[in-house]
């Protein structure tokens, strides 16, 4: 039987609903997990979550569009979020930002053509005493200077390549 991507998402979400329950209060944990696995929350995903929780899909969309860590549009595998708040700004955020744009070849808010990186701004990351700070997915980097940007990006590429070859071996 041909298993489509949509079937897989639906199946995944059904399992998540078993874990977190079918109350409305399970909505955020389910959406956060979907976002993590698929780098986005697609229409199909939103419809399935809505059906399982017994709410209108627009309610789900309302939530997805509200939170900056949830997105209905595809994001890169690595989301780089540079803190733009004042303490990081005072410690040289602007030059780190420029270098990130140069090295990734995209502007803030955009995703690289290979789907690997999304570059975004973040509000205060709580690393104000050691800025500029940025998050790569869940990992935090502090005292980032323009010359460290390259290493951070290459580190992501390497871990992705490793992940891909592991997947290949599994098959």
């Amino acid at each position: 039987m041909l298993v489509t991507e949509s079937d897989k998402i639906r199946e995944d979400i059904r399992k998540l609903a078993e874990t977190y329950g079918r109350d409305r209060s399970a909505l955020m944990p389910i959406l956060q997990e979907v976002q993590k696995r698929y780098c986005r929350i697609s229409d199909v995903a939103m419809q399935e979550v809505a059906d399982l929780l017994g709410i209108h899909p627009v309610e789900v969309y309302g939530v997805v569009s509200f939170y900056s860590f949830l997105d209905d549009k595809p994001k890169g595998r690595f989301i780089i979020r540079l803190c733009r708040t004042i303490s990081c700004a005072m410690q040289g955020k602007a030059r780190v930002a420029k270098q990130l744009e140069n090295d990734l070849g995209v502007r803030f808010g955009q995703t690289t053509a290979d789907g690997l990186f999304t570059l975004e701004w973040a509000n205060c990351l709580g690393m104000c005493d050691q800025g500029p700070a940025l998050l790569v997915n869940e990992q935090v980097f502090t005292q980032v200077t323009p010359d460290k940007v390259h290493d951070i990006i290459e580190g992501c590429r390497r871990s992705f390549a490793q992940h891909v070859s592991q997947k290949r071996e599994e098959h």
Partner: protein
Amino acid sequence: MISSVDKTRPLTFASVDPDAALKVVVGKKRSEVLAEVAASGLKGRGGAGFPTSVKWNLAAAAKGQEKFVICNADEGEPGTFKDRVILSDYTDLVCAGMTAAAYAIGATRGIVYLRGEYTYLRRHLEDVLARRRGRSLLGRKILGKEGFDFDIEIRMGAGAYVCGEETALIESLEGNRGEPRNRPPFPVDTGFLGRPTAVNNVETLAWAACILANGAEWFKKHGTEKSTGLKLFSVSGDVERPGVYEFPMGITIAELLRHVGGENAKAAQIGGASGHCVPASQFERTIAFEDVPTGGSIIVFGPDRDMLEVAENFLEFFVDESCGQCTPCREGNRKLLEGVQMLRKGTCSMKYLRELCGLGQTMQLASKCGLGQSAPNALLSIVEHFKDDILGRTPQAV
């Protein structure tokens, strides 16, 4: 990622045994726990400064089969990072504080609402919770006390500053957009899932545990009459030694700056983006709920900083983080930001600046929650104290 914590002296939290605190708690009656916290005069360390005992008393008195204790770990105020340090270094103390709160109000479930940006702390927190369950510090019959059941789960935020507001936080937990509710009703009677809920900041809970271990009188040795005790501060900006510091409430700004190496500052932002910008001429003012309040954020600006850039940065933050629910905040912040950009271009008349300030005052009065009410603070205090910096600028300065 280890934050620099004051190296000249250890934090009080390091000297308090969280297990001992909890043993004291279960040895007391509920009313005695509430009375101890009340006697300490502890006020909310997240910034709002609401008396913790009032919150706990109301939640204790509220009728409901199921009650909740929520630890507000949505530390999003620009310039604040002390809760991150407490969560990673004094996790058991926070858990003990939550458990004490649960005992006092009769709650059975606790939730740590951890901001999405701190996801990397989650595993550590889960490990601590598991360890506590294994040691009968969480779960059924805590420390053998019959009928004292309480457990804590972790729920993640998803990058919304406004969810630090307690009713928005509850909305988020319930699976809604993080839009603040009208109050009343207050969470203490109609909170998470409509049940009585005490929402307390990370640091507040840690101090509550210390107070219950060492007594209210011990806590009151420091601080002022209206702002008792010690407080953690997150210091950043133009100082020699940024980091987390512990000072008594009521410390003057000048004294704090001396300690962190920021004596030559021209201004200090006390209380983050939603706080006030205090010029050097007022550094003898005290940091306390009755003078300059703060949740702990101290951002220091050296002599060469452009205060208008600071105002612009804060307003960009608020435009981005306003939940958009009420008009004064949603539209007001945009207009203020436009105004600051006009000032930077040197195209803002005094008349228009006055109108902007009027708009700021309207926002303070008419916004629905603390975000909109405090968003204009920084700009208004910068306009008040740094007129020379902001008026009649030449476009080249942009």
